[in-house]
């Protein structure tokens, strides 16, 4: 069964030796971002699905370079606007 994992703990994923994973430098419980940020949640999914198709070697961990500070700033904008990004 082809699998792809979404992790915020790269060291744990390395120990487990998952076949494919994307790593996000985000807190536990926030693997797909922040509430109502649908475009960011979708982006994480698409990054994972892309790796599902493209990985050539078992143990591939691909970094998704989106800083948590930037996510929080976007979340604040979202809250201030009272809408959904």
């Amino acid at each position, binding site marked *: *069964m082809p699998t792809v994992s979404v992790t915020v703990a790269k060291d744990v994923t390395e120990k487990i030796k998952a076949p494919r994973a994307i790593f996000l430098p985000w807190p536990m419980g926030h693997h*797909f971002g922040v509430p109502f940020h*649908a475009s960011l949640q979708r982006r994480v999914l698409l990054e994972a699905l892309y790796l599902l198709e493209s990985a050539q070697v078992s143990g591939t961990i691909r970094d998704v370079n*989106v800083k*948590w500070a930037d996510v929080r700033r976007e979340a604040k904008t979202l809250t201030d606007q009272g809408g959904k990004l």
Partner: protein
Amino acid sequence: MTEANSSLADPRETGTQLRPGLWQTVNERYPGSMIEKDRFVPLAELRKPLSKARLTLISSCGVHAKTDSSLDVCHPFGDFRFRRVPSRLRHQDLIIHQLKYPHDDADVDINVIFPIERLQELASKGVLGGLTENFFSFIGYNMDPEKFERTVAHDIAEAVVTEERADAALLAPA
């Protein structure tokens, strides 16, 4: 940046793991509770395009339908059961029972940890061929990883293959 400065850098700004050394920390606190494998499993290839593939979602986030009984969050060794989560459900149909990670934001929008509505959208747009009828969730906290593999992991894997006929699985450890 010097080594001293690097160690003081805010990981939220540098884009590094926010909680470094998590495996070691948990394994020291709960000896033997963390999984470590000696070798990689062979890479299973996706045998059809995503647009024709049926995807399942498996998460340790402890989410389940509000109509189902909750998992046991208080047992000292963990709850070695899982819940099927119908993939057609929406945020308001679901609830989280888990004590080991912050889920305040996921309580507001379940897609933060269990992106069920985003997956429904990708399937309806044809990015995915479809979703399995059920997704799967369990409580990640447990003190016996070997028993976990024999029970929860084995039973979910069997259901994913024989009942749900998934072509691929998205794993979301919480």
